[in-house]
């Protein structure tokens, strides 16, 4: 393949390393050091996209992050598809596969032209606004068409094979941008001993110096860059991050930096390497040296491929050795625009003319152009270009002194490239992220970073300084200022000698007039990516959208993935003119993170797949897995749900597990319950204040059940607390509530009752708990201990310190099943040993492991609540029928006392927890079902309550349910109905929630 626009020398590319890539299925060649954009231009590719709304052919405009058109889809395989890649920022690698996204079926055919024109007419400014507002239903119709026509890239349909991660960084000085200002600031800070991080979005440091033919100290500027980079890399206290975009600047000098580690190597990262890394930087000081983006001028048909910004033309020539055309016309409002013409001429190609909107340009660069014999047309503008897929000619005319009107006759010039410069826009995006409002500067003709509360300094182009000598000085000064603020002393830094330029002041001009009024002239684009024209902004203003934020939303200006980096200021200028205001009066929109689009993977990092969420395991987990348990997530814990045997349905397993507990003995891993060790002489008093029931007289060696309420009197947790010693208790909580209860205790102790002498410590993970329950549980325990565990010596609600299977244990004789039960607690390192001994010895007693589902059924048979299932933050202990668990005799109040005695909590007809027995014993009411009183009632039917727990009880041979019914405790024996989604009705009788062993004899044996 020929690279017809490639120069034989010049540039930072390696001509000995050719690389092959494809664009829209066709093979091309570029060189190591190219971007995809420079390689495309070298190959003479003009059209890279079709525009969003009008489907107009679009070419490459810029050379950096501000590129609005060359936004491509990358990826050789389905899984490695990446949308929204700016070709100007994508380094070329061998085998790169790219396709255009805007354009169907292809950017080169005009099939879309017709649809595009329809789309254009259908989508006047405010289209989105109007469509979203009215009529809503139309959006559905438009959406699919717009999406296909606009083609904003697509996400891969397969799982991304790459990994992404996150790295935390800290530094004294974070320098953003490694151009002349950033490098000088970093060098100054590093020599002064500061910890420095310097990040730049490009593959190599140097910023604007990489794109120019400038000299420093009489040598190519890149030599100076090389020496600074070499010195910086020799310091231990400097971290250099190339290919890293500082994408977000957040509060407290926290910055997110998106590093692309392997995107320049291949479609997929090498084995064991991450593709992209998000650095989370916490900096004491931040130096923003983000430079400036050149502004294009707005003129008729300014989107025809071949229309570029002039600095991009220089960058392609000087950095990549690519001249993106043959015959150049430059239009500029300032001296810097001349550079493109000078570079173009020096590359040996034809500069047709420089069109300067100013009357008397005289600066150094102007002279340099004259010396090259380039024709300069002053006081003029390119009012229109001709061409479709490439510029063919331009129309130049004299302008009035203020540039607002065409005053002379039109001269047509033949050209294929138009480079424009409307001056520079400081890249203030990051400063905006922190909430700083930009400030307009008439002398800079642009917005400067506004005052900030961050520890932030700015230097160089972003301050509106464009002369290299001034930029270097600002970098030095920022570095010194940072050092001073850190209490460090600056070492000597000598700035290189730079040629100073005479500069003629720029003209403040954004929108080049046409012979016709803007509304009738050919389209004059302001924002390429969202297809916003000057006429569109004028319409928005005419329709009454005067605030710039409204204009933005009405026209979609700046809404593209480029955030309007090129177009925003021009748009504001057009709006200002239409509103007859100044630009500062019109104001500016601001920017949000991210500066450039990033992959979702980089946001998520490693918190995906197996590492998405921690999984917490008990000491016996391996055993459960080996037994084929299915697991239930309870908080982050993996708890055995049930232990199916081969061929069993879930219900068959549950029936078997339940009967084993009722008739023999079952074993449950209860290690996940929250356990809090409480010590101190006021521990007892504290318990009395956080539980609703009484604790003053609980004896050492005894356990008691407690209910915990919020200030509102609503139950939020429950559990058994044991008195281990006069000043020592251990509290159990629900599995999911453990952390909250622990924080709750600390909160009340630290803020309300610091005078109470009590300490809390979490011991959840320290103890493993094996619960054996059922009539045979005592026989099993007897086998593994020398202790007398008879009913006389070890009473219900006692705890004993004994040895079980050779391991010291605290055994609690408490029961959540209603059966004789022992909860055996041992240090978790020995949990598995004791568990295995129990399993071994239990075989002859029919010991059956069971999981949380059977646990739920067994407790429901007994009417025991589960906090979080039978409570929902709206029920008091009285609503649960648990008034017995409230003591109003305590000398000090308890949390929730006042709340549960509010008038609404003591009124008649509150929803109360009851049992529900279905008329058809085989029917199990679905949990959550709503209760009604009259099965024949017409909608809307008053709802009397709902089902909170519902199961099949094999032990009882019928279904059981617990639920809430208004005034339910007074309605025993009455009938309620539960309408089902299929139109049927389940009839149930209100009863006591204690279905099994109502006298509670079995646990006391």
């Amino acid at each position: 393949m020929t690279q017809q626009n490639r120069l034989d020398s010049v540039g930072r590319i390696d001509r000995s390393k050719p690389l092959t890539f494809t664009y829209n299925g066709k093979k091309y060649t570029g060189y190591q050091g190219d971007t995809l954009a420079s390689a495309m231009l070298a190959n003479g590719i003009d059209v890279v996209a079709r525009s969003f709304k009008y489907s107009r052919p679009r070419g490459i405009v810029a050379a950096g992050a501000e590129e609005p058109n060359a936004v491509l889809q990358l990826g050789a395989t389905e899984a490695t598809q990446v949308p929204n890649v700016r070709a100007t920022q994508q380094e070329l690698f061998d085998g790169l596969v790219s396709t255009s996204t805007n354009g169907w079926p292809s950017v080169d055919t005009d099939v879309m032209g017709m649809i595009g024109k329809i789309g254009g007419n259908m989508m006047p400014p405010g289209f989105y606004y109007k469509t979203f507002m009215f009529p809503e239903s139309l959006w559905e119709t438009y959406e699919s068409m717009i999406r296909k026509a606009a083609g904003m890239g697509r996400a891969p349909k397969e799982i991304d094979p790459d990994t992404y991660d996150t790295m935390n960084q800290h530094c004294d000085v974070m320098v953003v941008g490694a151009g002349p200002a950033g490098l000088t600031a970093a060098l100054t800070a590093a020599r002064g001993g500061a910890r420095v991080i310097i990040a730049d979005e490009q593959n190599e440091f140097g910023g604007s110096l990489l794109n120019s033919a400038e000299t420093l100290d009489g040598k190519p500027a890149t030599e100076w860059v090389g020496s600074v980079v070499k010195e910086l890399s020799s310091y231990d206290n400097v971290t250099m991050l190339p290919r890293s975009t500082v994408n977000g600047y957040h509060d407290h000098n926290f910055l997110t930096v998106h590093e692309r580690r392997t995107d320049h190597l291949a479609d997929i990262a090498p084995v064991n390497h991450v593709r992209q890394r998000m650095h989370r930087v916490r900096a004491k000081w931040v130096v923003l040296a983000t430079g400036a983006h050149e502004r294009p001028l707005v003129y008729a048909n300014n989107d025809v491929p071949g229309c570029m910004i002039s600095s991009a033309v220089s960058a392609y020539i000087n950095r990549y050795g690519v001249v993106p055309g043959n015959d150049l016309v430059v239009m500029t409002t300032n001296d810097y625009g001349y550079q493109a013409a000078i570079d173009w001429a020096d590359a040996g190609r034809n500069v047709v003319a420089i069109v300067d909107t100013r009357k008397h340009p005289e600066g150094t660069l102007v002279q340099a152009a004259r010396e090259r014999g380039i024709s300069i047309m002053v006081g003029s503008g390119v009012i229109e270009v001709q061409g479709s897929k490439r510029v063919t000619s331009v129309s130049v005319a004299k302008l009035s002194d203020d540039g607002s009107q065409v005053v002379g006759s039109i001269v047509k010039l033949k050209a294929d490239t138009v480079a424009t410069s409307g001056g520079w826009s400081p890249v203030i995006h990051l400063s905006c992220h922190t909430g700083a409002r930009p400030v307009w500067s008439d002398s800079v003709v642009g917005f400067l970073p506004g005052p900030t509360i961050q520890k932030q300094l700015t230097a160089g182009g972003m301050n509106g300084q464009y002369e290299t000598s001034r930029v270097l000085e600002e970098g030095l000064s920022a570095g010194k200022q940072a050092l001073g603020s850190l209490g460090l002393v600056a070492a000597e830094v000598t700035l290189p000698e730079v040629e100073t330029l005479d500069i003629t002041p720029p003209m403040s001009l954004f929108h080049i007039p046409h012979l016709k009024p803007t509304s009738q002239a050919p389209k004059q684009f302001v924002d390429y990516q969202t297809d916003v024209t000057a006429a569109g902004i004028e319409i928005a203003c005419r329709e009454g959208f005067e605030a710039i934020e409204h204009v933005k939303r009405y026209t979609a200006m700046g809404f593209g993935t480029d955030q309007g980096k090129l177009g925003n200021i021009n748009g504001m200028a057009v709006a200002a003119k239409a509103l007859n205001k100044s630009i500062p009066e019109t104001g500016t929109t601001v920017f949000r993170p991210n500066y450039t689009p990033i992959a979702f993977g980089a946001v998520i990092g490693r918190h995906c797949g197996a590492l998405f969420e921690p999984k917490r395991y008990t000491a016996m987990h391996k055993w459960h897995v080996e037994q084929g348990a299915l697991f239930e997530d309870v908080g982050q814990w993996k708890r055995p749900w049930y232990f199916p045997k081969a061929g069993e349905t879930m219900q068959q397993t549950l029936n078997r597990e339940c009967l084993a507990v009722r008739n023999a003995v079952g074993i449950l891993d209860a290690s996940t319950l929250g356990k809090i060790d409480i010590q101190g002489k006021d521990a007892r008093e504290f318990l009395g204040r956080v539980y609703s029931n009484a604790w003053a007289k609980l004896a050492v060696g005894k356990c008691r059940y407690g209910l915990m309420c919020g200030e509102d009197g609503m139950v939020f947790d429950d559990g058994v607390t044991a008195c281990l010693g006069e000043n020592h208790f251990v509290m159990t909580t629900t599995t999911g509530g453990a952390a909250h209860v622990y924080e709750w205790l600390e909160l009340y102790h630290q803020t309300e009752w610091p005078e109470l002498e009590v300490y809390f410590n979490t011991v959840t993970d320290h103890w493993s708990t094996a619960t054996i329950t059922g009539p045979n549980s005592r026989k099993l325990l007897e086998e593994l201990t020398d202790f007398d565990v008879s009913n006389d010596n070890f009473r219900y609600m006692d705890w004993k310190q004994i040895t079980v299977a050779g391991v010291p244990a605290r055994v609690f004789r408490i029961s959540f099943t209603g059966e004789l039960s022992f909860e055996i607690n041992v240090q978790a390192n020995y949990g598995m040993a004791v568990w295995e001994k129990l399993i071994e010895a239990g075989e002859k007693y029919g010991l059956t492991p069971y999981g949380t589902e059977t646990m739920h059924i067994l407790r429901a048979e007994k009417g025991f609540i589960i906090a979080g299932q039978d409570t929902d933050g709206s029920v008091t202990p009285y609503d649960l029928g648990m008034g017995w668990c409230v003591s109003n005799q305590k000398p000090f109040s308890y949390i929730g006392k006042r709340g549960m005695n509010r008038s609404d909590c003591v009124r008649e007809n509150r929803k109360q927890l009851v049992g529900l027995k279905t008329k058809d014993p085989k029917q199990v009411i679905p949990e959550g079902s709503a209760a009604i009183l009259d099965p024949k009632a017409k909608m809307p039917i008053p709802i009397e309550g709902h089902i909170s727990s519902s199961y099949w009880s094999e032990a009882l041979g019928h279904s059981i349910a617990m639920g809430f019914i208004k005034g339910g405790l007074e309605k025993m024996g009455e009938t309620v109905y539960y309408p089902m989604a299929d139109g049927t009705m389940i009839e149930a009788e209100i009863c006591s929630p204690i279905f099994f062993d109502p006298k509670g004899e079995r646990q006391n044996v």
Partner: protein
Amino acid sequence: MSDVNQMTAAESAATKAAVMNQIPGSEVEGQSPLHHADFETLAKQGAQIGGVHLREHKLLGHLTLRCNPSSADQLAAVERVLGVALPLAPLTSVEKGDYSIRWMSPDEWLILVPGLETFDIETAFRDEMPGHYSLVNSSGGSTVLELSGDNVVELLQKSTPVDLYITAFPIGKVVSTLFAKTTTTMRRLDENRFELVIRRSFADYVWLWIQDASLEYGLVVEAS
């Protein structure tokens, strides 16, 4: 009620805190939270060269002490029991022989001792410590990982937001902080050597995380 306290004052005072020797005889093998990962085999059969080295210090005695740092009597008692004074400066640690103490919060310290000495030390505390304090054995609830190697700081940078630069995190410094989506108490033992106390139930998650985060450096598991 059957659970009402019937004890005399003297009986009650004698049971102020329940201390028990929780360690069985040597015939019962303890399983650390990472028992299932089988580090012994990995140490023999896994990679021998890598930027990150991992070793578990298992079955140590973990004691959490909470007391009043302005009580001279309590501080003296601690020194009598452990032979070393509590570190009172925030985020610091002290070490003497097999004992090490980490500052956890203004009234909280984590003491690591050899597993078999745990009960004796607890008992000694109960005998010596005056006033209001708590001492909790949490040995079963956590384990200790030692991470070292040329890339250990980078691995930790991926895992925790704390500044690990040597001047900001000198040898001996202790922090309790986030580790990925769990927590750890982390102490620097040497420039490239850190100790992480992690919770039992999260140990497998930490192990998975370390394996993943060390992929680009190589992980060497060492026998404990």
